[in-house]
């Protein structure tokens, strides 16, 4: 990641030229000449300096020849000579410029692909000028990130920054090589994830962020104040032997992202994609993780029905993007702090939970369970012991790759185990789970709401999904929540495709797809630059409407033509504009 500014016009700092964003140097790439022409005109109207080309190869050579000659690139997705995403990767790698993708395709998968490949925005065609007016923000943001990283190079946050930077670098490179995505699907995913993860931090034993540990972490963060919480100080406060600053830094980064997501603040694209975005066709990491928590909280309260288990299994346990550990404690901690649910007793729970390794997966569960419930939990969870241990072993501080990979690996085994444990455990838990439903439901619901903050419609559906999942064995729920997430995801998918349009129509014209780089894909659809095909409603105030409506175009034409003495060809004829006679224009 280059800290040197790619723009000759201004340095990597806060100083921005006065006339900015005028003069922003945009390279626009689209094989469609009509779109290209329109875009060029729109960008010029925004006072940008526009270079257009209709081939990706041309664009690349332009960029290579003049590395500092452009501030931002806008590219179509579907191009004949090179896939837009490939171009995106190249640019990200070689020039590290912000790239905006465009397409008439508004399918979730394509948009997700844009996200995972590192596009800083995604515009749906037809592009409106309002969408282009704000693209300068991506340039500023990128510079700001680079500058901030540069500034922090000597501070205690070095570990954090290094993590972030190397993650960014890893992201670019891995995205380019396709490892990031492909690795999800391979059997040797774990090694890949480890390697990938270890490139960002030194090889060190994985830290298990247990409930207890996370609670200490959050306490330390809160004591310091979230803005002032730096890894070094957090580490000191936590006073946990064997914990390194890097561990804390990594965890802090994720925690921050999580908090920001909850509060709906725009994220740094790279950070977010590095940490949470799952592969293109997988679920949305953060969303599933939150949903996973919902599942857990609801499970803990006996909310999840047994029959949903089959659905969960069917939905594909292996395709969850839930991180095994990181997001869950974060989320649950968020519960504690945001909702101040007095019923959540971590103290009791964590003793039980943390005593067994598998329980690490469950630390997100509000400890409203009685000890005997926990015993049941143990019972079921331990049958999954080997699987979970694997999860624990790898889930450490890694990027979400770890958890995703592990889950992929263990999906089959889990499926079997779930089969085994369902029958025996569900009834037990159901009967003993006498916890009030309301608080956890609210928690789960609010969590769901938070993560779906901008997407009201999907929230309802997801909430429904949540409540459908009651009475599920907690142990199984831990593993099945992946499936749940998948279901959720599919549910979300459906919602998105259904909601997508309305959300588009409701979209503010000045917002971009990634304005809310909050994890859940839902938010991508909520405020974005998707242009509305709104119904054209004639303005009554326009005087044209004063005329009786029965004037058709042909009528008017004939009316006009009658005024003239020949010379003008009748409207119905096809004619070449070039040969259009300009005589006989009535004055």
């Amino acid at each position, binding site marked *: 990641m280059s800290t040197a500014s790619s723009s000759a016009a201004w340095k990597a700092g806060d100083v921005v030229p006065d006339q900015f964003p005028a003069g922003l140097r945009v390279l626009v790439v689209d094989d469609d000449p009509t779109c290209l022409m329109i875009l060029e005109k729109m960008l010029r109207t925004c006072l940008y300096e526009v270079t257009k080309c209709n081939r990706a190869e041309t664009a690349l050579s332009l960029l290579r020849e003049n590395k500092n000659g452009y501030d931002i690139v806008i590219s179509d997705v579907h191009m004949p000579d090179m896939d837009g995403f490939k171009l995106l990767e190249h640019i990200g790698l070689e020039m590290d410029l912000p790239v905006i993708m465009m397409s008439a395709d508004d399918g979730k998968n394509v948009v997700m692909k844009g996200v995972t490949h590192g596009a800083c925005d995604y515009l749906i065609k037809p592009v409106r000028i309002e969408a282009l007016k704000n693209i300068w923000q991506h340039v500023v943001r990128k510079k700001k990130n680079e500058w901030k990283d540069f500034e922090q190079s000597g501070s205690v946050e070095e570990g954090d920054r290094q993590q972030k930077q190397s993650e960014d670098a890893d992201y670019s490179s891995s995205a380019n090589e396709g490892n990031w995505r492909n690795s999800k699907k391979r059997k040797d995913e774990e090694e890949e994830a480890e390697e990938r993860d270890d490139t960002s931090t030194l090889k060190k034993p994985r830290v298990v962020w247990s409930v207890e540990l996370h609670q200490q972490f959050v306490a330390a963060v809160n004591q310091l104040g979230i803005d002032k919480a730096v890894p070094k100080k957090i580490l000191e406060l936590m006073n946990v032997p064997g914990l390194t600053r890097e561990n804390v830094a990594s965890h802090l980064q994720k925690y921050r992202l999580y908090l920001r997501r909850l509060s709906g603040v725009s994220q740094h694209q790279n950070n977010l994609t590095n940490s949470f975005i799952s592969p293109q066709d997988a679920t949305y990491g953060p969303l599933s993780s939150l949903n996973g928590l919902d599942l857990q909280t609801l499970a803990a309260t006996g909310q999840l029905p047994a029959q949903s288990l089959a659905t969960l299994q069917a939905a594909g346990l292996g395709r969850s993007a839930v991180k095994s550990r990181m997001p869950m404690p974060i989320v649950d901690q968020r519960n504690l702090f945001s909702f101040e649910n007095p019923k959540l007793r971590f103290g009791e729970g964590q003793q039980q939970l943390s005593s067994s390794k598998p329980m690490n997966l469950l630390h997100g569960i509000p400890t409203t369970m009685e000890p005997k419930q926990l015993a049941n939990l143990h019972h079921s969870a331990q049958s999954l012991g080997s699987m979970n241990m694997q999860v624990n072993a790898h889930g450490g501080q890694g990027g979400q790759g770890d958890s995703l990979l592990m889950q992929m690996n263990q999906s089959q085994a889990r499926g079997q185990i779930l089969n085994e444990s369902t029958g025996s455990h569900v009834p037990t838990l159901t009967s003993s789970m006498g916890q009030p439903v309301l608080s956890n439901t609210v928690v789960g619901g609010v969590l769901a709401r938070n993560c779906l903050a901008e997407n009201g419609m999907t929230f309802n559906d997801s909430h429904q999904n949540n409540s459908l999942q009651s009475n599920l064995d907690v142990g199984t729920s831990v593993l099945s929540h992946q499936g749940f997430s998948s279901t959720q995801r599919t549910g979300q998918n459906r919602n998105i495709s259904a909601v997508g349009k309305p959300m588009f129509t409701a979209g503010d014209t000045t917002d971009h797809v990634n304005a809310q780089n909050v994890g859940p894909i839902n938010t991508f659809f909520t405020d974005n630059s998707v242009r509305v095909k709104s119904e054209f409603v004639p303005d009554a105030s326009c005087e044209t409407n004063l005329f009786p409506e029965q004037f058709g175009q042909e009528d008017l034409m004939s009316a006009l033509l009658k005024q003239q003495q020949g010379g003008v060809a009748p409207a119905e004829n096809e004619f070449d504009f070039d040969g259009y006679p300009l005589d006989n224009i*009535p004055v």
Partner: protein
Amino acid sequence: MERNQLHRLVALSRQPLFDQGFLDEQFLQLEELQDDANPNFVEEVVTLYYRDSARLILNIEQALERNPLDFNKLDILMHQFKGSSSSIGAKKVKAECTFFRENCRAGNGEGCIRTFQQLKKEYATLRKKLEAYFQLTRQVGPAETACRPK
């Protein structure tokens, strides 16, 4: 005929294009881009569209003659066509593109052929109407097309 009458006629002549769903808001975007520096911008863009879309239509026709049909290719071609059409605000044409693509995805060859015929009809109609409209605007002068109902 007086200028403001012409002005009104121009505005009126385009109104049905919107009312009847031939054009949508994107066309307005194009008109707003038109200025003194580019007084014929809309017409230029639309002309470009005709040229490009004629090529695409030809490609699609050729692809539709193949046996068996390559739905993937057809879908790709139509995606391009849809993109262009939507960028000039060709609403009905765009809708037909969507239907066509649905048929492609369903592997419905007959549906594709049928939709394509419909698409060509809509395309021809729009073209006729737009050309009439431009003829009018050229007579009147670009400044007179300023009134646009919002």
